[in-house]
């Protein structure tokens, strides 16, 4: 009896393996537009590829010629996977219905293609949500290192040591649970050029890049915390700060020209801004408990070359200000550094949770579900 059950189970399972593999073959046939490698490889180009495919399926139909069966299967598979299927695929359903009734295809409309292109550049639609993009690899970048000590406090504390310690602790916290692959641009006291940091992040195909720094602002009487993402400098101070941090970039002009092409990457800008705001909020509200006159300099935009170069959404956090004597003493206390790490981790986890939630629900920037927005 048991043997017969096992035999039946095996038959069911083997049939399932066959069906799974037939699906893979179909995906292969359709040039695997949604297969992992291409999805990751193309980075932000993926949405364009998917949209062009969809657009192609929808609008290359001529006269009364029915849709080619494989194309229908492909579009259905895509439809089932993407969170915005309701919006874009309603049009495909209309096309299919039209054919079912024996009507002729709607005329090719370039205007609609333009709309899809516009979607990719809509600042108020969260593209990571629309395209269900997940975070897997996080690169943490402890600033400076080796021959480059970064900012130095009055008692000799060096920025490079503080940020390395915090980065290592942060890596341990974020790796717990095993959901994310957390990498560091340096794990010891070595000099790593900005160009190498950028290269590392891009080679590892980071989904998030977080650069950690400590500020030195002798002219300020209180401690400050601030978080940056890439953009034109918001004031003379941010320009000066970027100039300091970019000092040892070692980025050749030719690479810089390529980097410039990344300006205007809406997805990166949207996610960088969100990440910056959540980290800054978490850092300030938590650290304010230990330093009542801590100033919240908020989110700033500055042309840090390291933020421009990496493909992933990226932020640069100036955790605190080492030029303040009291803060320098605090920073030398491992417990205090642990609190900073926990605050940063809380912010990053908050961002990741929010992003996951949005991917699942398909929310737009205002937190309203797509369904609601439609109505």
């Amino acid at each position: 009896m048991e043997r017969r059950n096992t035999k039946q189970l095996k038959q069911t399972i083997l049939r399932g393996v066959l069906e799974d593999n037939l699906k893979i073959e179909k995906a292969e046939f359709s040039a695997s537009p949604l297969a992992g490698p291409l999805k990751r490889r193309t980075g932000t180009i993926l949405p364009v590829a998917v949209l062009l495919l969809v657009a192609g399926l929808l609008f290359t139909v001529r006269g009364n010629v029915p849709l080619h069966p494989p194309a229908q299967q492909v579009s259905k598979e895509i439809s089932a996977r993407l969170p915005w299927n309701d919006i874009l695929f309603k049009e495909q359903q209309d096309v299919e219905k039209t054919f079912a009734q024996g009507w002729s295809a709607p005329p090719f409309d370039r205007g609609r293609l333009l709309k899809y292109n516009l979607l990719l550049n809509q600042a108020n639609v969260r593209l990571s949500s629309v395209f269900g993009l997940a975070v897997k690899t996080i690169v943490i970048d402890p600033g400076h290192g080796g021959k480059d000590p970064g900012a130095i406090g009055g008692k000799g504390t060096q920025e490079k040591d503080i940020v390395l310690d915090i980065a290592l602790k942060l890596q341990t916290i974020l790796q717990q649970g095993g959901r994310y692959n957390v990498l560091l641009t340096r794990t010891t006291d070595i000099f790593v050029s900005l160009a190498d940091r950028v290269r590392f992040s891009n080679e590892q195909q980071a989904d998030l890049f977080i650069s950690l720094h400590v500020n030195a602002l002798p002219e300020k009487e209180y401690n400050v915390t601030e978080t940056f993402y890439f953009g034109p400098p918001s004031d003379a101070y941010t320009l000066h700060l970027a100039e300091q941090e970019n000092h040892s970039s070692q980025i050749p002009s030719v690479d810089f020209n390529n980097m410039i092409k990344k300006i205007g990457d809406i997805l990166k800008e949207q996610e960088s801004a969100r990440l910056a705001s959540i980290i800054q909020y978490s850092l300030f509200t938590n650290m304010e408990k230990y330093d009542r006159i801590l100033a919240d300099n908020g989110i700033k935009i500055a042309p840090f070359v390291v933020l421009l170069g990496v493909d992933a959404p990226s932020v640069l956090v100036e955790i605190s200000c080492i030029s303040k004597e009291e803060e320098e003493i605090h920073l030398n206390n491992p417990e205090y550094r642990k609190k900073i790490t926990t605050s940063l981790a809380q912010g990053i986890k908050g961002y990741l949770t929010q992003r996951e939630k949005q991917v699942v629900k398909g929310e737009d920037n205002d937190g309203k579900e797509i369904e609601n927005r439609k109505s």
Partner: protein
Amino acid sequence: MTGKKSKTEKADQQILVGIDLGTSRSAISADNGKKKWVESYVGWPKDFIARKVVGKSLLFGEDAIKHRLSLDMYRPLKNGVIKEGTARDEEAVKELIRHLITLVSGEKTEAKIRAVVGVPAESFKVNKVAIKKAVSEFSEALFVVSEPFAVAYGVGALDNALVIDIGAGTVDFCIMHGTVPAEEDQRTVLTAGDYIDQQLFTLLEERYPQADFNLNMVRRFKEQYSFVGKPGKDVEVEIPVEGKSTIHTITAEMKRACESVLPAIVESTLELIAKFDPEYQDTIRQNIILAGGGSQIKGLAAYLEETIGEYGPTKVQVVEDSLFGGADGALDLAKEMPKEYWTEL
């Protein structure tokens, strides 16, 4: 040793193989009785001088590790997936598979290969098409399945069982309930063998700053002495200090590094079981199977039994052959696959 066969005989020969394409090690089992494994490293000489030094145009496994300074090294399934974006990683997967098949079928064989390939669960989700393409060049027909599923099939854990496959790049969880597991029946966490190596490396660096060691050495220490829970005896290893081989005690560091992966394993196990039909949760808890290199960590099964046991009676078993468990399971699938299924592909 088989006798020489004529060319016609060879052409008609068909070999069924099961391949376990792992992050750290890859193994192959064939129905001709041959079994081989190789470290999942592929290396191309960096330049013509390196080519002359190593004497080959392509190196695999231990051979590649030995000559790593002269090679562009690829570990194509790092983190459980084909590292995306580099054609070389896809090429490395292809070469690795070619090498494995050659190991069991001979250099110039014209045998028809029918293969079932087990890949890390995460890779199965995202790279299955790429892997299928990579293998298709060397086989007449092939099936790709997730690695923990192949293990489960091999040990006959077809229904109400949970397989935890602890590899180098990933820990894959797979609930079996009488069908091919769907994506929601599987889970992957990234704190696996490589993570233990990294932790151990950092801890040893902190404790013995003068000691001179690298990640490969740390990995060997782990493979030899890994444990969780109470240590049997002190773990002592030889590490050079300023060129002189010196004994170092690393018991505490080994324990801490190995136990660093436990929270994620326990959490995922409980989550997966809790999601399952409540009527069968007890049965699954008593049918947990540990596979992969990580299953060899001493005390792991007992630790899981005790920790998960707080939620109800728990039984954790370890596969007999952690190295070939996946490949053997894949071979079983290949052998039992109906002939018409091969042709249907």
